[in-house]
């Protein structure tokens, strides 16, 4: 049975699309047939991070409006044949996403995919609701920063009250916390909320911690999900998170400062 995962946060700019791109790629690399859907109608960006922006012909809204069928709109990822992308419409109004329309597309996708990853827009407006409404599991992306954590809490409230599972009294949406842009150095100096601080405040199970990394910007510049960069800590952390999501017991890494050697200190090497 296909599983629907929403990547959400409330606040913008915390790494939802980066996470959606890497997470979906990670699931596909593990051999699962995965589709990642951009719900950010009007501000489509997922295709850019996946490096397929020039191959977009039809989009999600075209499929809902029956102007194209799913196979015409789905873009096969050039790195993995298990991965497909359903881009958002750049021109339409976000109200083009209707509950019935979204449900119909998701039901069709369920027939041929193992995982359906929904990249939510920021905010708590219609688009964000549509992205979370049919979710079985939710990955709440948060930065260790007060406004982001507050917005995440707000989203958790909505996940437990406004989703299909909540409305119909089914088993609640399974919620995970993914902490991104984490800087162990700043946490050590007392300048940043720690993993435990955020976990305690949100009382949420931790899926992963992605260290603040320059590789994330480099990856988006190139249109290659950061998880593909094997030399990057961020990629390893995303990989661990995917493993944890799939049920493996992997310890959390990259949350401690690296001890600098005596020579390193002497020569100012990091």
């Amino acid at each position: 049975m296909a599983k629907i995962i929403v990547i959400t946060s409330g606040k913008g700019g915390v790494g939802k699309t980066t996470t959606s791109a890497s997470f979906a790629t990670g699931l596909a690399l593990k051999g699962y047939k995965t589709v990642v859907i951009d719900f950010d109608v009007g501000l489509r960006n997922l295709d850019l991070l996946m490096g397929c922006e020039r191959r977009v012909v039809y989009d999600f809204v075209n499929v809902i409006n029956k102007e194209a069928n799913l196979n015409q709109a789905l873009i096969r990822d050039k790195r993995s044949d298990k991965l497909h992308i359903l881009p958002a419409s750049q021109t339409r109004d976000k109200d083009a996403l209707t509950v019935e329309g979204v449900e119909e597309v998701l039901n069709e996708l369920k027939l041929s995919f193992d995982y359906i990853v929904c990249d939510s827009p920021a905010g708590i407006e219609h688009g964000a609701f549509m992205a979370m409404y049919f979710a079985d599991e939710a990955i709440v992306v948060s930065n260790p920063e007060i406004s982001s954590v507050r917005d995440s809490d707000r989203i958790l409230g909505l996940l437990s009250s406004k989703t299909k599972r909540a409305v119909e009294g089914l088993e609640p949406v399974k919620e995970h916390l993914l902490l991104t842009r984490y800087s162990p150095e700043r946490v050590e100096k007392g300048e940043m909320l720690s993993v435990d601080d955020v976990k305690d405040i949100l009382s949420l199970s931790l899926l992963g911690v992605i260290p603040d990394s320059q590789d994330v910007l480099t990856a988006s510049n190139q249109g290659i999900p950061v998880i593909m960069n094997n030399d990057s800590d961020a990629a390893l952390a995303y990989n661990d998170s995917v493993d944890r999501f799939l049920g493996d017991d992997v310890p959390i890494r990259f949350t401690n400062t690296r001890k600098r050697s005596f020579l390193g200190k002497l020569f100012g090497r990091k």
Partner: protein
Amino acid sequence: MDLFKYFRSKRKSVDVAKERLSILIARDRIQMGQPSFLPMLQKELLEVIQKYVDIDSKDFSLALDTENDCEVLEINVVLPEKATDKM
């Protein structure tokens, strides 16, 4: 008092963040489950009381609790030591 000031200035920003955040989230969570008329009710009730007694807004609180099957509207008013007659 310089010593006192010294220790206070040493307070890490993350502690301030934690404290602000836990208060904020507790308040958000209460408000999420409440009917939307509550802030208005609070404002108007306060205005009515202020017509008769000189109280500050911080001396007035209103909360909606659930006890068993019962919803309880709790209103707390701290009257000044010497309530002056405004009329």
